[in-house]
């Protein structure tokens, strides 16, 4: 093939995040997917590719085709993909490649999970802790917050980031979520609330951690643009340098900058071309580290940019205007897709009360594991 096609994000859909008592992963996925088809103005028969994530509450060998059967789809290409929190961004990158190569015309990317109501909190926390090494890490009574707490302690020691700095991002994400009717956590919080919230894994406190939610997200990646505005996927990159925190060689270069560098190079764009950020924020430390390693703030400088209002809807670089994982909520794979869904809504002027000046270029970044797997995406509005 001589030339690659363009791949557009053509439509999006979501359920509210929060508690959906009695609804299964498939129930939630179907709601988000139905909305995405409507948004993309496509019929079931138009979908020739389906990528789906995983659900810890529904371990299944063939989740994608299970979903297709229930949702009445007969694609020519389908499978699920597992890359922790980076799954959503990785699926979007793959959907782009499937469209660019000509293999598919319309790819549905969908994930959802009843992670909050479908299991006990302990069960959820233990399932997630297994992302640690089974012989060297998990037997210590470690948990995902413990891994991130360890990482935060080292990053703060190396760079001078403070607990007050981290708290800034919890407040920011909550202030954004207040304007999204589908967000899980919307009651306002102040810096002092974050600092006084109960300790989880030092230096992380309850409000430094994202909640566990139920919910689903879906996007359609297509060879055709949306009538609401043409949003092209102009660049993508990945980096995978370690799986376990113990094996992370350099806390200042965990792979985020490498993935972002590839995405920017492919798109022919620079950091300063971007006017909207959708950055993974499982914990406040995640957001600070990613912003600083990728270069949207100097080391230990991300919080200063937040305080200056740069990441607010009225600032130079609006960040996670839906409220991020920290406040919109986190239900697994779909949690990491919400950042891309919101970026698309902002770019096509469908963000309602949250609408910012439509950004010409948006940058999306997600990480899986403990800063283990990194996926960066660039979205660009076509004139």
């Amino acid at each position: 093939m001589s030339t690659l096609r363009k791949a557009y994000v053509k439509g999006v859909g979501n359920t509210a995040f929060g508690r959906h008592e009695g609804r299964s992963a498939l129930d939630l996925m179907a709601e988000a997917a139905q909305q995405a088809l409507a948004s993309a103005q496509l019929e079931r028969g138009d979908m020739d590719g389906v990528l789906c994530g995983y659900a810890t509450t529904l371990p299944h060998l063939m989740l994608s085709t299970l979903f297709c059967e229930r949702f009445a789809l007969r694609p020519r290409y389908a499978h699920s993909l597992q890359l922790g929190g980076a799954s959503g961004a990785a699926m979007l990158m793959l959907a782009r490649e499937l469209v660019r190569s000509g293999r598919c015309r319309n790819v549905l990317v969908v994930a959802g999970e009843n992670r909050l109501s479908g299991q006990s909190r302990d069960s959820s926390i233990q399932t997630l802790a297994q992302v640690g090494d089974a012989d060297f890490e998990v037997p210590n009574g470690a948990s995902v917050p413990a891994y991130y707490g360890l990482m935060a302690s080292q990053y703060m020691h190396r760079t001078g980031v403070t607990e007050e700095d981290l708290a800034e991002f919890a407040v920011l994400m909550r202030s954004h979520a207040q304007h999204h009717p589908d967000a899980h956590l919307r009651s306002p919080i102040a810096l002092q609330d974050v600092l006084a919230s109960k300790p989880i894994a030092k230096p992380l406190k309850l409000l430094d951690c994202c909640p566990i939610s139920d919910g689903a997200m879906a996007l359609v990646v297509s060879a055709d643009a949306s009538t609401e505005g043409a949003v092209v996927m102009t660049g993508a990159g990945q980096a995978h340098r370690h799986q376990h925190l113990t094996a992370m060689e350099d806390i200042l270069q965990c792979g985020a900058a490498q993935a972002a560098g590839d995405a920017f190079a492919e798109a022919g764009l620079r950091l300063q071309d971007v006017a909207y950020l959708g950055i993974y924020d499982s914990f406040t430390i995640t957001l600070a580290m990613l912003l600083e390693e990728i270069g949207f703030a100097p080391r230990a400088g991300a919080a200063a940019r937040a305080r200056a209002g740069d990441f607010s809807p009225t600032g130079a670089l609006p960040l996670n205007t839906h409220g991020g994982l920290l406040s919109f909520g986190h239900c697994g794979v779909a949690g990491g897709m919400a950042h891309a869904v919101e970026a698309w809504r902002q770019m096509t002027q469908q963000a309602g009360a949250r609408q910012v000046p439509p950004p010409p270029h948006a940058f999306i970044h997600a990480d899986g594991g403990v800063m283990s797997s990194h996926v960066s995406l660039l979205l660009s509005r076509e004139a």
Partner: protein
Amino acid sequence: MHPSPTPVSRLAAPYIEGLRQGVLRYQQCTGCGGAQTLARYACQHCGATTLAWRDAGGLGTVQAATVVARAPSDDFRPLAPYTLVLVLLDEGARLMAHAQPDVGIGDRVQATFFEHLGQPLVRFGALAQP
């Protein structure tokens, strides 16, 4: 679910067996001499597949420290709050382990061993000043 008293992977068996005997073991590449963090099939430095298990001296430096207040399971609730650390062993391998509560980043530490619900574990404590 109780932590498994046996190694989860055969690859890590010499490490777990070492803990039972009160010895910290790590993999070393017999080609380039590089120390491995965790257990691997190939050298993280040069890619060689000739790795041997060595006994470490048990001394290292703390790189990261947290206090877990919210234990992930009933098994660990009786220990909470407990301190976990990442320690760079003098031999070059990194290890996640428990630590005495007064241990902080940059501290020189020494490994001791304890058992929790049948699982042999490491707890680092401050190295006595020479």
